[in-house]
Structure formats: structure tokens, C-alpha cells
């Protein structure tokens, strides 16, 4: 085996996506039209509303190497895997891959709920490029590895979610890939199954197979990988020894939003000049119907938010407007902000309560409010509707970092059920105009009323 042979070669690869569905449709037709007449789709240029999800990424993987890919959500890891798997085509650059690629990206995607496990193994195997002969030969191993026993002849809709994933994983690992792309699938299944998966991975490593592992489990990266690659904002920010890359990444996460990078100007107004588009951007916000969570693209979004709720409806986007500045990260004490929330409803909900809470960096509650406090009745909201609401808040705060929780509940007989709660969701820096102590600007003014001789 030639150890130094390059299996995966990624050269200056970029991939763009569009933020709005309307443009996805328009650009899709444009691209198809151009291709139909044999013209290049000129994919190297950005059109309105498009952004680079991956930007100028280059790296090489040698045969037999295990490479871990880490980075925050939205940093481009999964996009990269889809490119390596050939699901997406690069818009710039080129990718060369030597050997059969097997992907563990959401296993069991081709399962049909009505068919039995046995039938699904054959369908899924064929989708992954296995011949009937190959599947016949490995059938028993697949069933044994998945550990689903007698359920093999029951429709998979009766499977538990663990069994479902195990069967999907088992088919995928038995498709005999030379290169294995793994995206976070090891997080599913119980501890014993995970253990089995890691054993299988070690086996693959011993056989000299190339593995690309995308995961948030940094310990797994440090333990199993020969090399780690850190993605930040669509580009590779660091690559090398897994321990040092993981340590660097820890530093970034623990640092939260990198405050040192805020450019503070004396007036505090020019800071947001790049975002000072004002009204058009707000109009766009009010029009767009996002498919995925757009909050993560806002500059004041805190990626270390804590999110929970049953998600029958979701906060899909938000926008802060302050004195015609859209999406500021820094505001001045006393500024009035308009906080727009875009909520997309998957189910109809009868009676709603929207609320927010402003806190200091160390969690001291400064001001919290919800629609119930003012007796505002909200709802009913219908499934598959989108709602935009607005809080207007006068930010009479001291200078410093503030975090805003946002959420909404369903109220049934005044008992709330959390639908989507995003704690530490927004991070705003407030600049004090005047000096005072404490947290809240109470706008004290002072005057001398009288001067009188005492004696």
C-alpha cells in the first residue's frame, strides 16, 4: 500500500447558497436555462442574496488517514461532506477523489416505512451502489451488526428510532467503501451501539480506509483522528494535530463572541456603517420566507445560545433596527431598538405568549416582559403560517455586554408550555453616554435650588 498516495484532493473549492427561496427558484431556472444551451452557469459569481457557504477551501487527504472536521454550526462542515460525496457540485475549484465513497450522512434516508427491514436492506444497498450478489453475501452480517433480531421481517415503521438508525448504519458500513464520510451519526444509538461503531471505525482504519469524520464530539476527534481541520465561516482556519486544533477551538467557544474584534469608534455610530442600509433591508426581512434558521446569520446572534421547547413553531429569523441601523451589534445607552421576530408555525396554536428577558453577561436579570403581563392576547396562529412581531424597547442601560432571551409559550388555562425558547439568543453591546454606577440609566438630572447662609 502506497501510504503517501493522495485519496482526496480539494483545490480552492467554493460553494454558494441563496438565502431566500424566491431566489433559489429564479436562479435554478437561470442555471438550467444556461446549461440547456451548453453555456457555463458562471457559478463563480455571487448574485443578489447569495453567500459563500464554503470559500476557497483547499486540503488533501492521504490514503488511510482519518481526518476530523470541526467547527460551529453553519461553518461549512456538512456542505463540504456533501461536496465530497458528489451530492452538491462545487461552484469554484475542483475535487478529485480516488475510490468508492461511502457516506454515513443521515443513514436510512432511503428507507420506506411500509417495507420490512429485509426489503429495505436490498433497496438501501442498491441506492448505495451495491449489487444484489454483494447484498446477499453480506446480508447476515448486516442484520447481525444492526442487532434487530426478529424485527427483520417487520415493516420498518414499527421500528424504534434506534433500530432504524442501526439498520441504516449497518447497511452503509457494509457497502465496502474505500472512503468513509461520517456526519454526526455516531451521536445516535445507545452507548453499546456507539461502542460497536467505534470498533468498526478502528477496523476500517486498520484496513487502510480513509475516513472523514464530522462531529461536535471533540473527544472523539482527539482520540480517533490523525489530523483535524477547523472550519470557521466557510473557510479552514486551522489544520494540524487534532489536540492542538481542538484546544484552539475550545478557546474560541469559551471566548464566546470575540469581543476584542469589535471596533469601537468614539461616536459608536460608524461601527455599523456597513449595515446602515436601513429601510430596504427591513423590507426584505418583512418579505422573505426563510426555510431554515436565518438567525445564525445575524451579526448580533450568539452562537452559544441555549435552545429548547417542543418546536411546534420556531423562531426562524430576527432583526434589530436601531436608529435606521439594521442588525447592529453595538448600540448606545438610551437608544430605542425595534426587535422583529419571525416565527414559522408548523402546527396551529390557540393561545400564545411572547416574551423576552434582558440579562447582563453574568446572568443578572434586568428587564423581562411578556405579552401576558399587559393582557395582550395573541393567537390563534395557524399551522404553516409565518408571523412577524415586534418589541420596541428603550435600552436605558449601562455600558457593557447584554444578552437577550427570547421565547414563546402556548397558554392553556394560563399554564404555559414552551414552544421555542432561545436563551442568550442575542448579544448586544451597549455604550454608555454618561457615567453612572449600576445597571440602569435612570436619567438623573441635578440642579442647585437654593444657597443660603446657615448662621
Amino acid at each position, binding site marked *: 500500500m502506497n501510504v503517501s498516495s493522495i485519496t482526496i484532493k480539494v483545490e480552492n473549492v467554493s460553494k454558494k447558497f441563496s438565502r431566500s427561496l424566491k431566489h433559489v427558484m429564479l436562479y435554478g431556472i437561470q442555471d438550467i436555462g444556461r446549461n440547456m444551451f451548453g453555456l457555463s452557469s458562471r457559478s463563480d459569481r455571487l448574485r443578489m442574496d447569495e453567500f459563500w457557504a464554503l470559500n476557497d477551501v483547499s486540503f488533501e487527504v492521504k490514503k488511510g488517514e482519518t481526518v476530523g472536521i470541526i467547527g460551529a454550526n453553519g461553518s461549512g462542515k456538512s456542505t463540504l461532506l456533501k461536496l465530497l460525496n458528489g451530492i452538491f457540485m462545487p461552484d469554484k475549484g475542483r475535487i478529485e477523489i480516488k475510490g468508492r465513497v461511502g457516506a454515513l450522512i443521515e443513514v436510512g434516508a432511503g428507507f420506506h416505512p411500509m417495507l420490512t427491514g429485509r426489503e429495505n436492506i436490498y*433497496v438501501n444497498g442498491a441506492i448505495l451502489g451495491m449489487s444484489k450478489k454483494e447484498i446477499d453475501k453480506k446480508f447476515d452480517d448486516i442484520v447481525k451488526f444492526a442487532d434487530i433480531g426478529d424485527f427483520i421481517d417487520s415493516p420498518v415503521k414499527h421500528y424504534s428510532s434506534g433500530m432504524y438508525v442501526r439498520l441504516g448504519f449497518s447497511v452503509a458500513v457494509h457497502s465496502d467503501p474505500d472512503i468513509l464520510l461520517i456526519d454526526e451519526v455516531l451521536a445516535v444509538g445507545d452507548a453499546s451501539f456507539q461502542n460497536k461503531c467505534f470498533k468498526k471505525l478502528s477496523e476500517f482504519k486498520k484496513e487502510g480506509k480513509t475516513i472523514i469524520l464530522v462531529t461536535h464530539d471533540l473527544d472523539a476527534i482527539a482520540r480517533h483522528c490523525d489530523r483535524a481541520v477547523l472550519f470557521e465561516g466557510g473557510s479552514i482556519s486551522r489544520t494540524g494535530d487534532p489536540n492542538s486544533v481542538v484546544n484552539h477551538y475550545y478557546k474560541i467557544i469559551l471566548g464566546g463572541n470575540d469581543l476584542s474584534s469589535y471596533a469601537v469608534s468614539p461616536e459608536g455610530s460608524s461601527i455599523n456603517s456597513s449595515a446602515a442600509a436601513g429601510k430596504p433591508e427591513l423590507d426584505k426581512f418583512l418579505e422573505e420566507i426563510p426555510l431554515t434558521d436565518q438567525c445564525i446569520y445575524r451579526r448580533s446572534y450568539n452562537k452559544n445560545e441555549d435552545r429548547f421547547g417542543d418546536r411546534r413553531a420556531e423562531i426562524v429569523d430576527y432583526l434589530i433596527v436601531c436608529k435606521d441601523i439594521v442588525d447592529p451589534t453595538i448600540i448606545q445607552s438610551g437608544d430605542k431598538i425595534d426587535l422583529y421576530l419571525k416565527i414559522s408555525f408548523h402546527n396551529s396554536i390557540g393561545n400564545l405568549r411572547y416574551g423576552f428577558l434582558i440579562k447582563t453577561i453574568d446572568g443578572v436579570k434586568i428587564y423581562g416582559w411578556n405579552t401576558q403581563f399587559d393582557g395582550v392576547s395573541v393567537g390563534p396562529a395557524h399551522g404553516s403560517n409565518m408571523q412577524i412581531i415586534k418589541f420596541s424597547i428603550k435600552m436605558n442601560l449601562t455600558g457593557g455586554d447584554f444578552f437577550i432571551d427570547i421565547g414563546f409559550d402556548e397558554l392553556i388555562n394560563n399554564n404555559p408550555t414552551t414552544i421555542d425558547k432561545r436563551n442568550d439568543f442575542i448579544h448586544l453591546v451597549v455604550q454608555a453616554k454618561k457615567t453612572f454606577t449600576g445597571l440602569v440609566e435612570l436619567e438623573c438630572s441635578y440642579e442647585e435650588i437654593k444657597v443660603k447662609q446657615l448662621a
Partner: protein
Amino acid sequence: MNSDKTITYQPDNQIKMGFLSAWKEIINSLYGSRELIWRLFVRDFLAKYKQSLLGFAWAVLNPLITVGIFVYLNKAGLFNIGKTHVPYPVFALVGLSVWTLFATGLSACSNSIVNAGAMVVKINFPKSSLVISSMAQAVVDFLVRIFLAVIVFAIFGVLPSWTAVFLPFAVIPLVMLTLGIGFFLSLITGIFRDMVNVVNLMTTFFLFLVPVLYPAPESGLFAAINNINPLSHLIAGCRDIVFLGRFASPAGFWGSTVFSILVFLMSLRFFYLVEAKIAERI
């Protein structure tokens, strides 16, 4: 294994390829995915009939009821069908069976990629298999309907021409035309969901525009429209094979056959040009 083969992904991969190498790849890909097409076909076939009481009967119930409605409309004098050489129900059933092959095939093909959306964005596999296996489903339904037609022929005491045995071959051009349009629409539907409704609307509309439930008119504007409509020729051709024993308009049938093959080939090329772009748009 084929571990020496290097795959390259780059923008406009397909466009940069020469004419011959592009077709070579298309043929290789189609040949290589025959196993997958079969599996997808079996999957959809089983899934369709597994939790269904009447199962196969549905393939024949729809055309039977439609024919029943038209027999009634004809008897009631609401819908003047004109003269047919054979009893009307037999005439209509043959036309409608062939038509339904086109209509269900087209709608199945154009929805095939969207319906498999979850799979398309997660697994890399030849997406043409989805379209072809959907069409195969419609072909099987058609074959089932032919058996039904034999029974109806017996009831009405109609003896078809001996050439009727060639019917399965006579529908091949129609299948190619359907697949051709289906390949094209499957990608467009991936981008605009509107196409689902458009296809339904068009098939309903064409059911009346094309002489399916009535004999082709012999003169006038309507006849002229029919004359340039390949669908009319292909369906009439199938009916001629069953009843007449020869093509009433051989030029029309063979011309439409050539047209269908061209549509099929162009659409196939188009499909492979655009296929790589669809996953990110779905």
C-alpha cells in the same frame, strides 16, 4: 475494487465533456443503475399495494369508472361521441388504457424526484433511476389493464384483430415520449412545485383534446390540430393495432415515433446536464 478510478467534481462538469463521452457516460450510468431501478420499482410496487384492500383492482377501477361515466353521458345524449366501429365501451376502454399510461406515467415521473427529496439531498445516486422506476410502475398498471380489457372484449363479444398482440410494442413510442417529458418535468418540479398542478391540469385538458374517448374527427380545425399532435397519432395507432389490424395513418404514427425518440434523447441529455444542480435546489 475500482479504487484506482478518480472522480472529479468541478463546476459545469457535464458541459465541458465532449458529445460522445457525455453519451457514453449517460449509457454507462443507465446500465449501471439497472439494479437500482429494479429495486426502486419493487419498493414502490410493494409499498403501493401492501396496505391496500383492493390492491391491483385500483389500476382497473379508475378507467372502468371513467368509461362508465362516458357511456352514461353518451346514452343520455349529453356528449355526442359519433360513430365507432366497435361497441363504445370497448372502444373507450382501449383508448383510455393507453391514455392512462401516458397520464399516470407523466405525473409519476414529474413527481419522482421531489417525492424522493430526502434521499436526493442525502445520498449520491443516479437520479434517473427514480424517473425510470416511476414510469415502470405506470407500465405495469397498463399491462394489468390490458388483461381487464380482454374480459370486457369477451363480454361484448368483440374479436380484436390478430395484430392486437403487438400492442405492448406499439406503446413503446408513447412510453419514450412520456419518459422524455417526464425527465424534463422531474427537474423543473424540483424547483417549482407549481408543476405538480400544471401537469394535472394539462393531462385533464388533453384527455378531452386528444381523441381518447371519441373517434378522431375527419375534417375541420379539430382534425388539423389532431394531425399535428403526436399524442393523438400514438394513441390512435395503438387503437388501430387492436381493432383495425393496420395503421390508419402510418405516416402519422411513424412520424410521431421519430418525434418521441428525439424528445426522449434530448430530455435525457438535458437531465444529465442539470441533474447535479438539483440537490441544492430541492
